[in-house]
């Protein structure tokens, strides 16, 4: 089955991919997976020795941008390397057969490789009118996904639409769109993002090839290596946040000097993803680097929960806009969990991730390690991670038109302010919970920002 390492490398060389590039790729994948560098040879050996893993790529209700993201991914080209260790037997955007021949290719892939292929699915699944809002060969995509995932080793749902319905499920959508997990069977892992970061897709597949299982996930089915970190904590502009250096208007002094985009509506403090550390296009850039805020595209229902994208959010728990500060406080007081501010959220995610990593005798890989912070706080009822069965609000779908029509001035609450000193806290420090009294109800006319007294002083302009 397996190909000898030498033959694989020879094949790569023939295609202009050097051994060094391949090893670099494996090292980067290892780091992304939060495995120690000692795992690189094991990853490389596993990838090189794998028979080409059959893949069925389905495109549900969406823009096709996730497959496109893969084609545009990084250097050495992800597509190139994936073509080496994957055999994509069905992919509508590229495959030669069309019409009945395409359907026959799919059937052949499903029967020949039963229980031996990976399903990768982008796009949402409409449920209205028996699924008639997205059909392939006259069949609802829902049924096709059902058939394909039933015989797959596992399913990777790529992009925000496949995660929770995404754009089609945003308020105003009428197709009854749901995420792939609602209709798929068998093991499933979700990689939200609009589009998915192809780097994380490659790392997930690399993990499978190396360990023959999908990576550890949170309760929402998202791999912890990619969706554990808080964007804000890993952000290259974080120091400007601490120093109170903010962009206050597009193109102003702060924008030209690369200051923090918090006040321009950046959703980095509310968003879990590793964009800040892995970037896009091989780390070439990412939105904050380019000079614009994060829009929170990896989070549940982000089109409704994170918008307006250029303003601070009125809700303390933005992805569940009907959760109020006092509800959060009550949960905390009831002892269900200590909500300790955004740093604690980050700590929780890291604790989860490290738990998973420990199972593999691994620690955070050097170089990719986020800033140290308090590790002790492990809130168990954190709606944002969908791990809060005790919070009934967590299941309520956000409804935007009404919410969007609500004048922001009427909404309560400061955004949970990060403890200003947590970035400097030693590893063993107690949780910074006291820094943030959990249940203040403050109605302000300008909820867009943190209360001014919480903000570090702003620096005066240095030039003009």
């Amino acid at each position, binding site marked *: 089955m397996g190909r000898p390492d030498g033959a694989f490398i020879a*094949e790569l060389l023939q*295609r202009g991919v050097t051994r060094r590039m391949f090893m670099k790729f494996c090292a980067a994948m290892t780091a992304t997976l939060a495995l120690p560098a000692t795992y690189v040879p094991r990853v490389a050996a596993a990838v090189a020795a794998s028979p080409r893993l059959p893949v069925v790529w389905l495109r549900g*209700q*969406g*823009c*096709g*941008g*996730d497959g*496109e993201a893969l*084609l*545009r991914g990084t250097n050495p080209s992800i597509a190139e390397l994936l073509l080496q260790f994957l055999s*994509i*037997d069905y992919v*509508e*955007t*590229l*495959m*030669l*057969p*069309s*019409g009945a021949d*395409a359907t026959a290719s799919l059937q052949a892939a499903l029967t020949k490789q039963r229980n031996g292929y990976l399903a990768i699915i982008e796009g949402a699944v409409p449920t209205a*009118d*028996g*699924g*008639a*809002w*997205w*059909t*392939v*060969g*006259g069949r*609802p995509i829902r*049924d096709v996904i059902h058939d394909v995932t039933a015989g797959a080793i596992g399913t990777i749902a790529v992009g925000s639409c496949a995660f929770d319905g995404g*754009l*089609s499920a945003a308020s105003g*959508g*009428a*197709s009854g769109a749901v995420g792939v997990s609602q209709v798929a069977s068998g093991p499933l892992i979700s990689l939200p993002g*609009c*589009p998915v970061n192809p780097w994380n897709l490659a790392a997930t597949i690399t993990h499978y090839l190396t360990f023959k299982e999908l990576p550890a996930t949170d309760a929402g089915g998202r791999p912890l290596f990619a969706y554990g970190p808080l964007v804000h904590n890993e952000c*290259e*502009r974080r120091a400007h946040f601490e120093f109170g250096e903010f962009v206050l*208007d*597009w*193109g102003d*002094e702060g924008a030209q000097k*690369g200051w923090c985009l918090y006040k321009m509506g950046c959703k980095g403090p509310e968003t879990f993803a590793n964009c800040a550390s892995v970037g896009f296009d091989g780390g*070439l*850039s990412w*939105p*904050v*680097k*380019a*000079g614009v805020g994060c829009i929170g595209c990896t989070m549940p229902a982000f*089109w409704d929960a994170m*918008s307006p*994208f250029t303003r601070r959010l009125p809700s303390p728990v933005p992805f569940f806009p009907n959760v109020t500060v006092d509800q959060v406080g009550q949960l905390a007081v009831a002892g269900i969990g200590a909500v300790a501010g955004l740093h604690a959220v980050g700590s929780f995610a890291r604790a989860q991730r490290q738990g998973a990593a420990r199972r593999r005798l691994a620690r955070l890989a050097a170089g990719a390690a986020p800033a140290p912070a308090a590790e002790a706080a492990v809130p168990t009822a954190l709606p944002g991670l969908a791990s809060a069965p005790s919070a009934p609000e967590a299941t309520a779908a956000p409804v935007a038109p009404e919410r*969007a*029509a609500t004048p922001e001035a009427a909404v309560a609450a400061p955004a949970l302010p990060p403890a200003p000193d947590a970035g400097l806290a030693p590893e063993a420090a107690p949780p910074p919970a006291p820094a943030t009294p959990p249940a203040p109800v403050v109605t302000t006319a300008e909820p867009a920002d943190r209360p001014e007294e919480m903000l570090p002083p702003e620096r005066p302009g240095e030039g003009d």
Partner: protein
Amino acid sequence: MTHLALDPVTRVGGQLRVELELSGGTVSDAWVSGTGYRGLERILEGRDGRDAWLMAQRICGTGGLAHAVASVRAVEHALGVTAPANARLLRNILAGTQLIAEEVAAFYQRQAWDWVDIRSALTASPSAASKLAQSLSAWPNATTSYFDSIRGRLAAIVNSDQPGPFAAMTGHPAYRLSAEANLLVAAHYFDALEWRRTVLGIETVLGGKTPHLQTLLVGGMAIATDWGGPSRPVQGEHLWDVVRNSISPLGAAGLAAVAQHLDDAKTFVEQVFLPDVLNTMLAYTDLAKVGGGIGHYLAFGEFPADSSDRPVLALPRGRVMDRDTTRLIEVGPSGVAETTAHAWYAPEAGGDDLRDPSTGVTVPRYGGPKPPFDALAGRDRYSWVKAPRYEDDPMEVGPLARLLVGYASGDAIIQAAVGNAISTLGLAQDGLFGTVGRIVARAVEATVVAGRLDGWLSDLRDNMASGEIAMADLTTWDPASWPSEAQGFALGESAQGAAGHWVTIRDGRIAAYQIVDGTTWNASPRDGDGRRGALEAALVGTSVADAGRPLELLRTIHSFDPCLSCGVH
């Protein structure tokens, strides 16, 4: 009479179903259906007007940038704000690069296998392929060993029991190229993938990620120059100590990367794309009349050279009726109307009559058979695509339409480029009105746009060096400054053709939004008068040698490079 259904049509964007009636091996009727619907226009309602373009961009994962730009322009038009020159140039650079990238992908990734036999390529002599390549262009990647290695690599995939997407429709009698010509295009299939990946890095540099960049802004662009711009510091001024981690996309390093990408784009298009397309189509020129269709061509035009209301456009606006390229007819927003007479929308909403998009309605109601279904043909309503018409007429849009309109407008660059292509292929003056012409037009247009890119970049550099560093006009940024009701529109071009966005903003929120994409025109169903859309009309009359392997039909379908994600939205 044979009924034939092609579904899924692969190598297109979104869900496309084509049904045909064949009599005596010739298509006598055709129905084109978009079978996927999301509802973008309705989802946009109630949102902050400044977020509209982010959602509109998600119309398409490959070519969404054109819609992002159209959307942001429509909102700017409604608010009465004009993006400064720097922002206009940046948008041109981004949208121009993406247009070229889409056109290259349209040929190599989506159309090539309709004309190129992948198995025949495996029998080619690498040295003969090298000679052929060197006779066509100065592209350095043309050695015998290069073609030898590509041939080996292809064989390893195609001949294995895991051919992946390359399970081929091989040995079809309609394939005509020599083995070497087949190998040439097959080799460049992989080069094009790699080139496109690299060149679209421009979106990552200037936009933060790709696809779906993030740096547009109502009023301009969100990216900024390095502190003070390239003209600072002036003599004697204190130098700002750059201790930032983030490199400005408009700093020296960012602009150097952009310049490199634009240069790569131009070189590839001139030395690989156009020569490959011309050499491939040279073998098929006798089919030039196949797949003609409607014969009315519409272009909204793109790439404004100034910030006025009626800017000079690098790709001109206008229409050509009945294939008469001696006469250019003016085009404006008021001529556009859409009907849902044969599409799955609620008739009582009033969309079945032709409606101007500024008052357009989108009330979806599925009216097809309960899936799974075998046939949509002959049903009264058979698609999610609306039927746009210009002054009542169905139109063909896309690269060919843009070139013909540019030709008719007397644009010297376009006339020269078209003239060269026609004479290389030995075609008559009317030789472009068909399937072959559509494919050739895409490559010719790519060279025209590629020729503009470095001019836009040097204008941008000159502007910034002169101290003009504003990237956005923020006078209307605050919704409090907006009128209680405002309407706007923008007409532009996506890779697929004439694209328009119409927006109504009420009390700071989007009250109505309508989009007409290039594919909406081309993949249009019949209108209220029963007249077919451009693709339906182009398929009628095509001869098919083997109904089980209808290669001839795929050629015409793919020549439009349809994207149903965009077309339906």
